């Protein structure tokens, strides 16, 4: 259990770092898939198996493929350019802000008494049957709202990605 946590954490961190640092966009997406799979393994370890399956289905199956299609539809992705073309103008400011955030978060978690008092739960169980029942009983309104949101997002994405209509005669 302990070793599994450290190994999966290392895989997840490596995937995340590579996903935001590599030059080639396709390699970035492949690292992102590694990161998603690492997180799914974490969810399995935390006994949230339905969330792990959803993570693999939606992120690896849909989002990563969507990003790959976008890379195909846009050009100049090969990543043979130098660091000046990859990093933005004030990149050191962004890196500094991210480092400060990481230090602050670690410092806050280390000093937190409530989180330290909680122990791992063997009672934490979840079954797909229970999730389905609660989803259409207590959470039916958010569920329907989510259906409307997904439909709107689908139509909106198609409309935005359509060719611009030329108004000139």
């Amino acid at each position, binding site marked *: 259990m302990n070793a599994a946590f450290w190994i999966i954490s290392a895989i997840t961190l490596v995937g995340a770092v590579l996903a*935001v640092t590599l030059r080639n966009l396709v390699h970035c997406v492949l690292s992102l898939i590694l990161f998603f799979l690492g997180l799914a393994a974490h969810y399995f370890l935390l006994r949230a198996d339905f969330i792990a399956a959803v*993570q693999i289905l939606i*992120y690896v199956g849909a989002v990563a493929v969507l990003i790959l299609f*976008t890379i195909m539809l*846009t*050009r100049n992705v090969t990543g043979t350019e130098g660091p000046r073309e990859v990093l933005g103008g004030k990149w050191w400011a962004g890196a500094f802000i991210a480092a400060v*955030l990481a230090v602050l978060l670690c410092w806050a978690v280390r000093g*937190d008494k409530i989180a330290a008092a909680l122990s791992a739960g063997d009672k934490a169980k979840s079954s797909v049957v229970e999730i389905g029942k609660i989803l259409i009983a207590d959470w039916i309104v*958010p569920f329907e709202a989510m259906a409307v949101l997904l439909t709107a997002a689908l139509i909106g*994405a198609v409309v935005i990605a359509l060719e611009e209509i030329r108004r000139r005669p």
Partner: protein
Amino acid sequence: MSIPLGHYLILSGILFAIGLCGALTRKNAIIVLIAIEVMFNAGILNLIAFWHYKQFAVLTAQMFAIFAISIAAAESAVGLALVIAIYRHYRSVDVEEMKSLKG
């Protein structure tokens, strides 16, 4: 000896910082979207870790995770459509060249 909750929180915080670093430093709009996905997933990991350690019989945290994943999927679809539209307009996905609104 099992893993304490703080380990998961620190892992999630580091992942969030990595995503923020990518979103703030890279020039390619697609990489910025990838970094935003990394930050989203760091937040969802927090939800699941707290659900596991509170030993809750109720599945509220898992419901939140499911809805967050759905919203992230919708967000990435619209965001990538915007990237395609911007590419068609500017012939580039460089976020530093998108400055039509700059005063």
